[in-house]
């Protein structure tokens, strides 16, 4: 019989997921594993993990892994990649990690055009610490530190990292995807593959922003959080390619 699906070698066989039901972090790690396997570079990969719920995956990815201080993943990855240029290096960061405490490191690495890949998992909330407001929290959305909901007069507006980085000249590829439907999961995988391929081709900084859910801290069950994601999150964070210089360069 033809095998149409198998477990990725990028994740340990004996792994027990620590993620909450309906969480999409697990999906993203699975997709990354599949892409690395397809590119046949598992043994040449290094991931720099941010601090957040992604930390639950450090033990179960099957390739080299380090942990950065909260927000510093892009700086740590700069050091790893510059001294290890023939390895594939990717950071994995939540929205608190990348867009709040790590904003300077993210912007500066993107501006230098560092040749690594950023996987940015935007769930609009601080998952790990229990539902505090993130820079990406939607207007009106409740958080433990914004109990009446995000008020733009006090908290400002959600930050759009792909669009912000698109102001810079150096980045090669910026795309926003989601994992809320099978079609979007496939698109996410395609985007991750493209971002990794850019790095292998020496094209510089790529970031895939993946809009995900956090049922636990959104206070919704997994199904309801899919609806919320579709109706609210994707309205604020429209999906699509925001920048793609990889093609331009091919044309030259």
């Amino acid at each position: 019989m033809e095998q149409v699906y198998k477990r990725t070698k990028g994740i340990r066989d004996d792994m027990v997921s620590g993620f909450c039901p309906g969480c999409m972090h697990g999906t993203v790690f699975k997709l990354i594993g599949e892409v690395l396997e397809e590119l046949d570079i598992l043994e040449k990969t290094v991931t720099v993990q941010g601090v957040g719920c992604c930390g639950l995956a450090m033990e179960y990815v099957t390739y080299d892994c380090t942990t950065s201080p909260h927000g510093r993943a892009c700086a740590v990855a700069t050091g790893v990649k510059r001294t290890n240029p023939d390895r594939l290096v990717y950071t994995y960061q939540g929205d608190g990690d990348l867009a709040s405490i790590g904003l300077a490191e993210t912007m500066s690495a993107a501006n230098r055009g560092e040749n690594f890949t950023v996987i940015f998992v935007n769930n609009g909330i601080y998952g790990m610490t229990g539902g505090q407001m993130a820079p990406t929290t939607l207007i009106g959305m409740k958080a433990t530190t914004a109990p009446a909901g995000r008020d733009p007069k006090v908290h400002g507006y959600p930050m759009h990292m792909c669009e912000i980085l698109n102001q810079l000249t150096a980045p090669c590829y910026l795309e926003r995807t989601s994992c809320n439907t099978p079609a979007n999961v496939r698109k996410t995988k395609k985007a991750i593959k493209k971002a990794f391929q850019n790095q292998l081709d020496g094209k510089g900084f790529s970031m895939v922003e993946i809009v995900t859910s956090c049922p636990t801290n959104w206070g919704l069950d997994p199904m309801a959080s899919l609806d919320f994601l579709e109706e609210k999150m994707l309205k604020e964070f429209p999906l699509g390619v925001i920048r793609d210089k990889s093609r331009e360069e091919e044309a030259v």
Partner: protein
Amino acid sequence: MARKFMKGCEAIAEAAVRSGCRFFAGYPITPQNEIPEYFARRLPEVGGVFVQGESEVASINMVYGAAQTGTRAMTSSSSCGISLKSEGISFCASARIPMVYCNVQRGGPGIGAIQPAQQDYFQATRASGNGGFRMLVFAPATVQEAVDMTYEAFDYAQRDRNPVLILADGVLGTIMEPVELPPMRPEEEVKALKEALSDWTLTGHRAEEKALILPGGWAGQEDRCRRNANMYETWGKDVQVEEYETEDAEVILTAYGICGRIARSAVRLLRKEGMKAGLIRPKTVSPYPYESFDRLNYGKVKAILSVEMSIPAQMVQDVELAVKDRCRIRTCLRSGGEIMSREDVLKAARELV
């Protein structure tokens, strides 16, 4: 070997390169700018990488990353910039990442003064970041010592898989002195040093041999603390100290770094005046040379003077721990960019008796 006339900061950078340092990241701050500037010119010549980080926070994290590939890596800053690095330094200590950094101290607290000072002693020896870790801390008093200590610091860092601090100050960073540079490590040796670490470094592994670098974690933290504590216990052998004219001394001056040098010349003059003065100059301030104070003859020693460019005094606490009430301890202090003069020390020493 040929002697060269070099500025302290540049000599430190050159010594690092010769020791095999191939990655440096830093952020501008006076009085240490010549360190990153020198690396920016020098590292590309030897196939190394220089990055001007967007901040001290980013720079130390770049070093944290680079060192995890087995590359000898360094950063430097001054006082308030070192504070910003403390998170990363603590991560290095926790994740057992060898790394060397240099603090060319200026005045403090806060932004302090850009002139030389020794206000960061506690930070260097007691709490260079959260978590109660310790480091070897070298305190050079001459450009030559700065060179030798930097050269060796990378070996110590690698031996212990722990950060090592070169605690300099603005005088040492900016003076020019003749130095003898250590030999340049051949490129094959530098490569071999990196490869020798590849079982734990982020160089790509098969799943069964995966490198996983954790600066902490849900389990096993007590064991990690205990393992580090056991390592600190072995550092007694690494104490470095200069004991000068201490045998028959009735008055002991003690000082590290630039003040150690000034105090040494004061001892010579005091001896000429007929005062039996001696000097204990810690060359490592962590581990501290407590035993040098046990070797003193307290039948003779009347008083000890801690000479520091810090107000309030800081190293004096280690002196108190070492002396254990066996004689009087006084301090001679300057700070805020006022450099200790030999006259300050002579006056304070004469007042002791």
